[in-house]
């Protein structure tokens, strides 16, 4: 009888733990980053060390031969692809592709350096409002836009706050571009940055937010 109670208790605890694990896993964003410049295993060490600055990073793996780094990060922190690229750069290497499988099921992907691979016949031009202040904002907004597959060019006017973007409509959309810009901290009319991302912008970039 005693044994039955112990085994039953163990099974219940084990089942509870596995449920907790599944729930925790559900709340993790899965990142896949393709990195160039990893010429030796010490380079991979430098890269991982830099990413360990993200305190809650977990399950970091680096494949030397493919240059692919994978890791998970709590979805509540909403780690942006731009921050991932910046961290790779701070480690002294180059990110060429970042993919995020968000815990909510959405997938974000960037493929840098794809300008020029657009279908000219599908090109459209759109202009829309993007909040920002300074030259750093301009660089961030344009770089983020141009990192989206299908975007041919992006130009943000600091005075008018208008972003003019040319993109291949078969590959992306105005809404997608606005969403991606919001993810790096800049509000547009239809996409708002989350407070944490806005708060992490440098002081000079923290524009006055509209309600």
């Amino acid at each position: 009888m005693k044994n039955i109670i112990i085994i039953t208790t163990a099974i219940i605890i084990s089942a509870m733990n596995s449920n907790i694990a599944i729930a925790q896993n559900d709340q993790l964003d899965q990142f896949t980053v393709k990195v160039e410049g990893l010429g030796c295993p010490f380079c991979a060490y430098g890269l991982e060390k830099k990413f360990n600055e993200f305190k809650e990073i977990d399950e970091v793996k680096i494949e030397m031969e493919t240059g692919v780094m994978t890791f998970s990060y709590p979805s509540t922190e909403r780690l942006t692809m731009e921050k991932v690229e910046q961290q790779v750069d701070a480690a002294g290497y180059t990110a060429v592709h970042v993919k995020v499988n968000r815990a909510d099921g959405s997938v974000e992907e960037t493929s840098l350096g794809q300008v020029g691979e657009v279908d000219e016949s599908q090109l459209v031009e759109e202009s829309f409002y993007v909040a920002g202040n300074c030259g750093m904002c301009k660089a961030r907004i344009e770089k983020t836009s141009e990192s989206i597959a299908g975007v041919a060019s992006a130009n943000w006017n600091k005075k008018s706050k208008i972003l003019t973007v040319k993109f291949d409509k078969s590959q992306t959309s105005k809404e997608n571009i606005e969403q991606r810009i919001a993810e790096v901290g800049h509000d547009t009319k239809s996409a708002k940055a989350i407070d944490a991302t806005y708060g992490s912008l440098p002081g000079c970039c923290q524009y006055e937010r509209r309600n």
Partner: protein
Amino acid sequence: MKKIIIWTMLFVGLIQNSAKSQGPPITGDKPIMLGSDSWIVKTLTEIRNTEGGNFSAAPLMLHYLPTANALIGIHIPLVNTNFEGRERNQFLGDVELLAKYQFYRKDGMGKTFRLVVKTLQMLPTGKQLALEGISMGTYQSYTGFIAGYESLKYGISNEIGYSFQPTGEMDDLRYKLSFGLPLMKPSYPVKKVNLYFEYQSSWFVSINEYLLLYAQGVQYAKGQFTIEAAIQFPLIQTSSQQRLERNYSVFLGSRYIF
């Protein structure tokens, strides 16, 4: 004829090694840096046997990378001298201050090419023994450029620079060429064994003396630790001070990165 044979051997060695090399050199320098806010503590003891006695320099080297493309460092050497027929001596050698800045980077998949400018300021804290690389006891200022290509299969590091001394007597134009050969498949976490083939040429401009050294080394790295050993010997040396003519040097080193 002797020179022709030496140069032919060198050339053949370079061709063979350049086809399969990888990793940071032992006696040379490398252009790859390990990310901002990193530290490296290392030692590289040189035990030199010359016609006039045995000498050693055991530096404690501390490097810090404030950014991904800049490095500053300090080298504090402990020197031992044992001139033939004289008492053994131990003292602080020439303290060195190092700064490196990487100004060009071209990355590819599993490979990278980088250019670095480097300066090394040697303070006259040692004794005036004219033992280049061990104890000069005079101020020296070195400026050089490092160009390096490193991949999972190939790794070549070149360094060219000029060392200036206020008196001008020991000014020298240096060139270093380093190759490595990985003996294990590259993997992460770090676990590797590499062989190294390194050449160092010094032309002492004012006194018109020339020195060409060849070093063969092996390195074992696991995790953040590395241990390395090399033996270096002269291929060509024209020296007016026969007692300081080199026979060979043994290098023993270790590194820890964090």
